């Protein structure tokens, strides 16, 4: 429970942090709630920690799009009214589902996303919301569509010398609403499955839907078959099963594959149903 030795430096600007990442043994630290536990178990042993905690990357700007600075805490996200107003309730609900109060206060959305933990809550909301991950690198800033960002367990499209600077959420059409549902591992609190659904309802029909799923497999994914079936008017419970059947899913001696496959479909279905109910002005 004692990390291996490391050097520590505080970044003075985004450019400074990016420059410091030229050292392949360096790692960026923000809230530290993903990295430090791994360091304590010596599963991660960076030579240098670049602390970006003091950089001006914190805050939520609500305009044509909602731009969330990467240092924004899960707690701030969970409490921001902008998401519900835009029909992006799922984003705030993902943040509220993270860990406990201490973790939500210290952990950041940028750190969580950059870490690429396939069992974290955040990716589901980002995928459903069709977010873009804004990253800063030596050549300046670029944006990566969420569908291309998560590549595997602890593996993202983030370059070696890049850091996440913001998450950009486009606002969905009028008549949209979303919801996040999850079943937590009673030990870790991480989702065994988490599903976020964003729907647009017009004239009593679902006219658009995006579904993001996390916790089930090595990469958070978009449930495209369920989306298509939902648009075609299939019963939600049937649609929810489509993307899980062929999917490689996690399984262990506590929560086996068959069980996880089953609850994944249940949770996807519940997320879609709740999102539709919200869009129709029904209950939460």
């Amino acid at each position, binding site marked *: 429970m*004692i990390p291996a*030795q490391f050097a520590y430096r505080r970044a003075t600007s985004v450019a400074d942090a990016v420059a410091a990442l030229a050292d392949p043994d360096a790692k960026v630290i923000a809230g530290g709630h993903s990295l430090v536990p791994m360091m304590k178990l010596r599963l991660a042993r960076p030579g240098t920690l670049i602390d970006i905690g003091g950089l001006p990357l914190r805050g939520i700007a609500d305009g044509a799009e909602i731009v969330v600075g990467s240092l924004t805490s899960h707690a701030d996200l969970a409490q921001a009214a902008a998401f519900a107003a835009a029909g992006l309730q799922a984003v705030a609900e993902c943040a509220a589902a993270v860990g406990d109060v201490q973790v939500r206060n210290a952990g950041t959305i940028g750190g969580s996303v950059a870490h690429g933990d396939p069992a974290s809550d955040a990716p589901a909301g980002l995928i459903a919301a069709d977010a873009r991950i804004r990253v800063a690198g030596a050549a300046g800033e670029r944006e990566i569509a969420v569908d291309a960002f998560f590549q595997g367990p602890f593996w993202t499209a983030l370059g070696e010398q890049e850091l996440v600077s913001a998450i950009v959420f486009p606002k969905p059409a009028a008549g949209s609403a979303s919801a996040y549902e999850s079943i937590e591992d009673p030990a870790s609190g991480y989702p065994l499955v988490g599903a976020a659904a964003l729907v647009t309802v017009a004239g009593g029909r679902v006219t658009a839907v995006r579904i993001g799923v996390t916790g089930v497999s090595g990469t958070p994914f978009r449930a495209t078959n369920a989306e298509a079936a939902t648009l075609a008017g299939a019963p939600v419970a049937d649609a929810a099963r489509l993307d899980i059947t062929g999917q490689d899913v996690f399984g262990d001696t506590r929560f086996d594959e068959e069980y996880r496959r089953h609850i994944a479909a249940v949770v996807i279905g519940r997320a879609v149903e709740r999102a539709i109910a919200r869009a129709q002005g029904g209950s939460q």
Partner: protein
Amino acid sequence: MSIVGTDRPRIDADDKLRGATRYLGDLKPHGLLHGRLVLAMDAHATINRVIKDAALAIPGVVAVLTAEDLPTAMEGPMRQFEPLARGEIVFQGQPVALVLAETEAAAEDGVEAVIVETTSHAAVLDLEAAIKPDSPLARIRQIGGEMEGSAAMHVEAAGEGEGAPAPAAAAAEPVSANAKGPHRQQHGDATAALAGSEAVVKGTFRTSWVHQTYMEPQGALAIPEVDGSVTIHSSTQGAFYVRGMVAKLYGVDVSTVRVVGAPLGGAFGGKFNLIDPLVMGAALAVGRPVKLQLTRSEDFASGMPASACILELELGGTKATGLTAFRSRILLDQGAYGDWAMDGAVPVMIGGPYRWSAWDSLSYGVTTNRFGTGAYRGPGGPQVVFALEQLVDELANKLGVDPLELRLKSAAVEGDTGVDGDPWAPVAGREVIERTMQHPLYKKRGSLPANEGIGVAAGVWMGARFPSAATCRVDQDGGITVVTGAVDMSGTNTSFAAIAADTFGVPIESVRISYADTATAPHAPPSGGSGVTYSVGQSIRLAVEDAKEQLLDFASDQMDVAASDLEVVDGMVRPVGSPDRGKSVAHFAEQVTGFVATAPPIEGRGRFAPGNPSPSVACHVAHVRIDPATGEVETLDYAVIQDVGKALNPGLVRGQLQGGAVQSIGWALYEELQHDEYGQLLTGSFMQYAVPRADRVPNVDVDYIEVPSAIGPFGAKGIAEAAVMAGTGAMANAVAAAVGSRIRELPMTSPRVWRAANSR
């Protein structure tokens, strides 16, 4: 004014709230070396070589010790006698080497650099396979010597009498050397009695390994003194116990070991001499103070949790008279070390708080390559209750009687023959069950929405009967100081203070409870077995009475009033009927402690051996809701009804009983230490090992009754362990009621409940 029976905060609460309590982790003597463990990677292997060079080259690393470096004087088949693996690794996570360094970080670096070369052997993990005559052995080199002290202590507390030797016929089942036993209890003709019963039910049940998960991990500090003695500061429940065991291991006189119990950050039975033997040996080897406090992961990997078992049970009953007979066969995993294994006790415990006409009850302790067995609150209880109380419910259902009615008809009373052959001590099973029948939560069970269920179960804990002693002196200021060597566990000192205040007749503020170490304290038993208040509390009452008598004798001379006509009320010694003629206790205390005093100081002595137990019976009532789509179980409400004899401090009693409910929910729904097929621990942290967190614990209503003990102080009974003796049964019966079918394996996780609910 009576203090006993009133709610009072714990006397250590203020220090704990302010962070002022100095736990083991806060102690940093001059010259301290920090220890960190090299843990075995294999579950079963022979150690060929331990390569220390690279570790020793790390700046700050002072020594790397293996078993040969410890100056042990004996060996025995107990973990306590094998602080580091001796040639053979018998479980993954077993300490193989100890790295000592000037800083914890250097010690941790050293651990990474130690290389342990091994030859692997088959890991023995499956209980049924392990006892087959052709099974590989979990321990290739069998170590001679008997279990001592430890296991016997709890076996006795759980109620086994003289330990009836197994009849020759019982040995008919051929078994491997992994099996210890059979331990067998037999009475009457169980087969005929079952055949003659109106209904018979049976089943096979499996339980899991469960960790005590105390907040403060295990640890100890050993300081070699200039005179060759060693002082050990330990997070232990039993200082005298530690002293005896380490002195034996290292072949030294007990007078050369002084053990100081550090404030406990939780123990639950798990803290007995796990780290002490190692730090003592290390301190002797290097001549410097050595401290080792496990990290959470190390505690999961190398601690001594409660063990799993397989229980086959068959029982019968009749509508008119209740339970008749039972037959059981229990395989109790004892892991690689059976220090605290309950294999001798479970054949008795499986009989519960009931009267039977015939039984045939046997068990085997099975050595495997998993941990070693530690004690955990009511050892053996949650396991046997899970089987017995489910079957009692099934039997009630089959007979068409109310589950509590069946239990009431069958409850043992004083003088009934117990499963160990001894007559039952006075026991209030009937009273507790009758009270439970009136509880609103139980009465609600007939009118529940779909997917909800209410379950009930009963259990009993006999309680330890450790002898103890204590002293009480009257201080210069008229206060009294009670000296005890019992480690304060779950508020026992707070109860001692109330006992002393009421017995002497001084305000509670004038009572000091002084914990003393093994060099200076009157002998005290370990704080365990639900025996502390029961025995030490009574020693303290006797010591205080003795001191009071001495004071009254002296005051009698001074006041010219017969001692029998004097009383002490609120710190004043006064003639009965003439309160205005009273003089303060301080007034007399000055005269026996000052420079010019001519009378001897007042020092009372109390010694006590309870002799007989005062069993405590508890019923638990659990209310759950299941989600049939996901198998998730939510505990909605809970009630504990228990006979406590006398609640010395009702607040602490409620806390104890609520804690028992919470741990029962943990056993029932969440907790399981799992290994893979190679014996690798899969649940080595709180990321994989689930405990009932606050958000998963319902309201727990405590409704205790007081049927006084003739033995314990003020009628008190040992209550801590009875509080977990019904929980797994109540939860299982609640889940069964909600699901509509039974789960016979602990814990009842969501996948298991989902499968039961959907018959998969």
